[in-house]
């Protein structure tokens, strides 16, 4: 593919601007967070063009943003952040993604690496067996149509009340696992049908469940608040709203194409179809999106519960001694209504994050009491061969609408990754590094090979350099289950 040749003006060491003069119709500049090296990767696909396209969205505030892990998607790039004024602006399903509330959760344990190593194989096999994953897998939770509607409104709380976890898990889930305003009447029969058997399933592709060990602590004080120290075992879960969310996005993307002419909106890509936030169509989508978001929190809650049971079984210790407390669960594909000071006026903005993590600073009113001093945990999965990170939000991130990156970011396409891995055993290579992987998809391991991703350590250095997040600790994978 030819590299992107549009204008990228260097603002400083970590920021690049696409001036709004680049395309007729851009309402604001685009701003990409990257260093000199990373910007070359970003230029190699069409992510920057999609940052510019999103600048067409009516009501967009300040700039169209992309985080350093950004890459080419559809509609808005992955790693994109777009805030719109709720009075004059739009909501766009394509700037959120099909996998509504795709997100991550991090769970601590009281185990140390030395205790886990002798049983690592048993643990990985048991997680693989007991946690439904892969294309077409069915979940543990069987719900009636009426119960599914309850689940869409109550999210994590519903599944906790049905035996999947503990009350205190809710405290450490964004929105307590149930965002208000979810309207099941706005979710189609088909979306409900696609979601019905999938609650409690991991999914496939880049979704995973990973047992890790903390191999570096950068901020002892914050780590202590989270109950974490070097050598400790953690569990990370990455999944989303499964078929229900995909169907919601699909249907509203289609309907919103009609809104472009109805509301006289000009966007350069049909996948950025949108409707005014306060229009009937906009409100309907947000009501449905919130249902999908709640479904995703319920899903990750179930997955965590199933994983806790596996740990209890393998290590034969009580839940209390095992100490598998949820550190945090955060969405990285969602739109949220958040208050910001814009030109000395407080405004409510509809902040679209697509492959970007909310990162509230210390003191933010929406944080759990325990995290008021640290700031919001930002959970960053890397690739399965290198590292993952726990960071926290900063005051400086106000410039990104309290948003930061969400992962390493893909570098190679799936087909290029498969070509690069032909004739190699990815699981064998990882095993030599002390990492056990199991996957239900035939080609998943090649598609998800470490070299398909940017080096997460480099991406972290950009966000910390730019000051929009702060490192707490780094994890190294031990056992990975892929869909």
């Amino acid at each position, binding site marked *: 593919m030819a590299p992107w040749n549009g204008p990228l003006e260097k603002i400083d060491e970590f920021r690049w601007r696409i001036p709004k003069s680049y395309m007729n119709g851009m309402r604001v500049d685009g701003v990409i967070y990257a260093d000199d090296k990373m910007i070359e990767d970003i230029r190699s696909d069409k992510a920057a063009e999609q940052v510019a396209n999103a600048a067409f969205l009516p009501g967009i505030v300040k700039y169209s943003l992309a985080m350093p892990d950004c890459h080419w998607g559809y*509609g808005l790039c992955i790693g994109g952040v777009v805030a719109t004024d709720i009075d004059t602006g739009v909501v766009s399903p394509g700037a959120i993604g099909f996998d509504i509330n795709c997100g991550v959760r991090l769970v601590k344990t009281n185990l140390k690496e030395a205790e886990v190593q002798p049983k690592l194989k048993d643990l990985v096999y048991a997680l693989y067996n007991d946690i439904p994953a892969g*294309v*077409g897998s069915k979940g543990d939770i069987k719900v009636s149509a009426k119960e599914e509607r309850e689940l869409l409104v109550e999210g994590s709380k519903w599944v906790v009340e049905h035996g999947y976890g503990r009350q205190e898990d809710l405290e450490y889930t964004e929105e307590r696992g149930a965002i208000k305003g979810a309207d099941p009447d706005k979710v189609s029969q088909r979306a409900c049908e696609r979601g019905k058997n999938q609650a409690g399933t991991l999914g496939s592709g880049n979704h995973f469940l990973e047992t890790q060990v903390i191999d570096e602590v950068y901020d002892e004080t914050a780590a202590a608040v989270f109950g974490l120290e070097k050598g400790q075992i953690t569990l990370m879960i990455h999944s989303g709203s499964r078929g229900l969310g995909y169907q919601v996005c699909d249907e509203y993307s289609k309907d919103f194409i009609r809104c472009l002419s109805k509301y006289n909106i000009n966007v350069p890509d049909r996948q950025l179809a949108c409707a005014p936030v306060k229009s009937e169509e906009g409100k309907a989508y947000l009501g449905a999106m919130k249902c999908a978001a709640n479904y995703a929190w319920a899903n990750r809650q179930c997955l965590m519960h199933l994983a806790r049971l596996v740990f209890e079984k393998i290590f034969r210790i009580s839940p209390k001694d095992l100490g598998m407390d949820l550190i945090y669960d955060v969405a990285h594909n969602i739109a949220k209504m958040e208050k910001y000071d814009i030109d000395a006026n407080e405004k409510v903005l509809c902040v679209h994050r697509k492959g970007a993590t909310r990162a509230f600073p210390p003191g933010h009113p929406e944080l759990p009491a325990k995290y008021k001093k640290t700031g919001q945990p930002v959970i960053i999965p890397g690739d399965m061969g290198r590292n993952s990170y726990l960071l926290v939000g900063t005051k400086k991130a106000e410039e990104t609408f309290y948003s930061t990156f969400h992962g390493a970011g893909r570098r190679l396409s799936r*087909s290029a990754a498969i070509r690069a891995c032909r004739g190699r055993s990815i699981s064998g290579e990882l095993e030599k590094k002390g990492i056990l992987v199991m996957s239900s998809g035939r080609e998943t391991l090649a598609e998800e090979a470490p070299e398909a991703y940017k080096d997460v350590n480099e991406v972290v250095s950009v966000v910390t350099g730019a000051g929009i997040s702060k490192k707490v600790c780094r994890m190294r994978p031990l056992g990975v289950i892929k869909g």
Partner: protein
Amino acid sequence: MKRYEQFSHTADIGVRVFGRTLEELFENAAFAMFDIIADLDGLKGDITRDFELTAPNYEELLISWLDELLYNFYTKGIIFYKFEVTLVSADLINAKAFGRAVSDNRNRLKTEIKAATYYNLKIIKKDDYYEVDIIFDV
């Protein structure tokens, strides 16, 4: 004539689909999607499904057609491998799809496709064939 080829897309899967007629283009697009989802080699089936779909233009009709098949794959558990499409008009298709239950063929499944996207979607008429690029979110 080649039915389709994959092209590089960083996050998702892109296919360039070919067809001598618009009908064949629609059939080959559906084949490409299921060829990504499952190993279709030698698959024989006993299920047929009829579809009638409307949309304001060919591009949206194409995505509606693919979405309809995906919905049937996920909720009815059918892997489709052969398609017969009749374009009745610019906004209406009749189609028949042949498939087999997923249950006997779970080991054939490869990739979860979340949806077919509208990103840069444009059906192009070449001299004697049609071509369209489709991005699947995976």
